[in-house]
């Protein structure tokens, strides 16, 4: 008998679970940096979906999309962390419950 290789469904369910854990973290944590970390985790889960479908549908487009998602994530990290540093300078906190006004 031959054992079947890992089906794509398991990869998709795994990335769905990682995404859900990221959503729960982004909704429940109040530290802006931890919310940011959870968003990175969600982007990573979506990348796993792209790579899985690209592998099992034998197409290169998913890999390219994952590449672009990574680029956008890097740009987002640079700008987002600069915003956190600026908020901390003016408000002395980065708790997202207390930072609720766009202009102060």
């Amino acid at each position, binding site marked *: 008998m031959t054992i079947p290789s890992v089906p794509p469904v398991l990869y998709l369910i795994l990335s769905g679970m990682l995404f859900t854990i990221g959503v729960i973290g982004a909704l429940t944590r109040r530290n802006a*940096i931890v919310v*940011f970390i*959870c968003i990175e985790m969600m982007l990573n889960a979506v990348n*796993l979906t792209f790579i899985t479908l690209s*592998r099992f549908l034998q197409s290169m487009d998913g*890999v390219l999309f*994952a590449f672009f998602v990574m680029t956008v994530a890097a740009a987002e990290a640079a700008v987002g962390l600069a915003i956190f*540093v600026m908020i901390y300078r003016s408000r002395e906190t980065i708790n997202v419950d207390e930072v609720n006004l766009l202009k102060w």
Partner: protein
Amino acid sequence: MVENIGTIFQWLIFLGMAFTSLLASLLVITRKNPIHSALFLVLNFLCVAVLYLLLQSQFIAIIQVIVYAGAIVMLIVFVIMLLDLEEELRSGLKLFYSKVIGGVLAVLFLIGIIYAVAGTSLTGKTGSYTPDKISANVKVFGEVLFTQYLFPFEIVSVLLVVAIIGAVILSKKRT
């Protein structure tokens, strides 16, 4: 049995990496210290990079380790050390109704994903990049990137320049 040994190793690696990444992501959202969250995030990224290797995308796996686990997490850890986040440790993780409702909705979302994925097989049109063709990963990737996806590539370069300028202007000392 002998011809199955590769498949058995594939299953072992997949299950190990899946459980480790789930455990690491649970630890990311439950640790109170943000530094611990960032370090478990590295573990999560490395496990997903191994899954990319299992899916025969070596290039994305290497980019994942360099860009995500290297550069982005390094930035996050740097900013955490720059800021003084002690008050988060004292306030802790209290449960409010909004958090409970959000968590329940997220779990419902997961159930929806599993329902949508588990019942059906992949129905998309199968492309021409078979696994043995993809094994020359970087070459194929570059060919597609610089022909079919040339315009998004240029857009992304503009986006990176905008991000650099934005980060510099934001963190500049106001006069």
